[in-house]
């Protein structure tokens, strides 16, 4: 039986989706070689009495409001645990004030955790001295900002080369690397322009090129596309995903927009009030929201390309019981990865009562009009639940 979490990679329109192995989302990941970033019980409490508040939280289990009342401290991030694998795009979705930016900044120690530990490539960040930390930021963990943060008095090329420049890389070499990065983001003809001559979308491409120029393994994206208009944003989302996959980079991507998280992320963590309330693939989040809060976000999400045949099919036995007159082996077939959009096309083209879902030559289920509509509506029905 196929479960939602464990499937083979499927080459989608946005580059191949790299699906994680099911069940290894929290706590210790299955294969530590593949884990680039590992966060364990991260807390960030802001305020002058943060350490006392932290102690109280650990000993007495105080909540956010109690910490504020008793210590005058604000809990920014509460007990965040997750890991990011090599080649994965990990989205952190939350509204403003949910602590997502703080969480992101703990991954390169721009923000010092109050408690907990971050491991990047197996090294604990808290064990690094200032020089080693700079080295890590300069070579391994790049960052892209919502505000873009380009230096106005430098050209596009010099901006893209800035990360290498402060590391002391010679001019010719850093300009070569920066030019290559700018070509990758489609700005090869803009090298000698100044940031103010570029549109918002182009400026953010420069920000991305600056991050790519140092050839990091991990890119931290702090709401990079939030300030852009919707068309440009979508274009950049697709390009970013494609580019990240092509280059084999990992990314942690912060957003307040679930659509964006679904479009970009291999996995999504949903944050509320400083805590991660659910981690899963886009499909898992949409099909099985952990609570009402997540469900509310998910309500408006289009399922056409997100939900796949394996999630809306009924088991073969049930189909046989319901429609003894039809032989499922004679139906039109499709793969478990076919999305709803494709299934609708198939059902419209063929008057048969269902579509057989076949995996590796084996019939694994049948999509009927009824199961398709239920899946599209997203109603959790006992009929579909234990697929």
């Amino acid at each position: 039986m196929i479960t939602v979490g464990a499937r083979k990679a499927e080459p989608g329109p946005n580059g191949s989706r790299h699906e994680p192995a099911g069940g290894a989302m929290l706590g210790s990941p299955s294969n530590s070689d593949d884990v680039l970033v590992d966060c364990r019980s991260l807390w960030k409490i802001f305020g002058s009495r943060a350490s006392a508040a932290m102690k109280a939280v650990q000993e007495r289990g105080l909540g956010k409001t109690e910490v504020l009342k008793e210590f005058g401290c604000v809990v920014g991030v509460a007990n965040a645990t997750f890991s990011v694998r090599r080649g994965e795009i990990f989205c952190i979705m939350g509204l403003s004030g949910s602590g997502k930016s703080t969480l992101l900044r703990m991954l390169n120690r721009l923000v010092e955790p109050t408690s907990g530990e971050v491991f990047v490539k197996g090294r604990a960040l808290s064990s690094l001295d200032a020089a080693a930390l700079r080295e890590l930021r300069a070579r391994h963990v790049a960052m892209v900002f919502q505000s873009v943060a380009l230096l106005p008095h430098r050209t596009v090329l010099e901006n893209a080369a800035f990360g290498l420049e402060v590391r002391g890389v010679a001019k010719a070499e850093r300009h070569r690397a920066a030019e290559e990065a700018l070509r990758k983001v489609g700005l090869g003809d803009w090298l000698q322009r100044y940031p103010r001559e570029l549109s918002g979308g182009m400026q953010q491409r420069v920000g991305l090129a600056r991050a790519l120029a140092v050839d990091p393994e991990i890119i931290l994206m702090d709401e990079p596309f939030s300030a852009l208009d919707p068309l440009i944003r979508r274009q950049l989302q697709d390009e970013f995903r494609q580019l990240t996959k092509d280059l084999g980079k990992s990314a942690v991507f912060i957003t307040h927009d679930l659509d964006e998280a679904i479009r970009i992320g291999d996995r999504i963590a949903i944050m509320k009030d400083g805590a991660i309330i659910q981690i899963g693939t886009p499909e898992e989040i949409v099909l099985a929201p952990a609570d009402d809060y997540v469900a509310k976000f998910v309500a408006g999400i289009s399922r056409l390309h997100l939900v796949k045949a394996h999630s809306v099919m009924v088991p073969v036995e049930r189909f046989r019981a319901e429609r003894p007159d039809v032989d499922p082996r004679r139906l039109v077939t499709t793969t478990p990865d076919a999305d709803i959009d494709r299934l609708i096309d198939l059902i419209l083209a063929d008057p048969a009562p269902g579509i057989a879902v076949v995996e590796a030559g084996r019939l694994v289920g049948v999509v009927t009009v009824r199961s398709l509509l239920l899946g599209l509506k997203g109603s959790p029905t006992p009929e579909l639940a234990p697929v």
Partner: protein
Amino acid sequence: MTAPFSPGSWLAPLVGWLNTNFHPFFESVSVTVDAVVEGVRAALLLPPAPIFVALVAGAAGFFLGWRLALLAVAALGFCGLVDLWEESMETLALVTVSVAVAVAIAVPFGILAARRRRFEAALRPVLDVMQTVPPWVYLIPAVIFFGLGQVPAIVATIVYGIPPMLRLTTLGFKQVPEDLVELGRAIGAPPRAILLKIEFPSALPTLLVGLNQCILLSLAMVVLAGLVGAGGLGAEVTRGLTRMELGLGLRAGLAIVAVAILLDRLSRAVLRRGRAASVG
């Protein structure tokens, strides 16, 4: 007659004690400053006046535009025409040295004040005093320590020139966009690179405003310091005043105006270029 409260009654012995016990120190400062000012003066007077005017006009024209070249010719030409060329150059030398020292002191302190709130709070009353005490009052201890001449003039001028430069340095550094500083940290830039490659360029326009203010205030003070025997245009003004010679006073006064306008316009033009550069 004694005032009920006279800070001078306990400051004066302190000044006297310092002067007695640290005389060699003040003496060496005096000699050094004298030598530097003389050097700058000599350098300014090295080329004949017309060549110097041509050099300044040429540089202004090349870097800052023909209007400033014209202004330089007019202002410096005027100084020569009223037969106060040497005095003007001497005043320029005094201003140059004073401003250089004032900037060298004000900028690091200004940066520190931008970083540490408490330091800034402690500095503020000191700056207020430095700016509001009538400049003549500085001259008294300065003359006690350094004797008459150009050294007390320069010391008083430096004290007077520091506050505007320092305040604007602090302002400029506080206005550096936080996201740019965060960028510096996020790309692993060492503190020195953040300072030189991010903060300084961002603060530059404000620093240049500070420089402009520092130059003009220093010029005003240097002229005043003619009272204590500093040479230059200030001495001519003082002479005109003490001899009641309107002609001399007016010539010297107008030459000061010419120098002031030239320095102001030149530093403003540099400022405009700085602004233009900082917005790309």
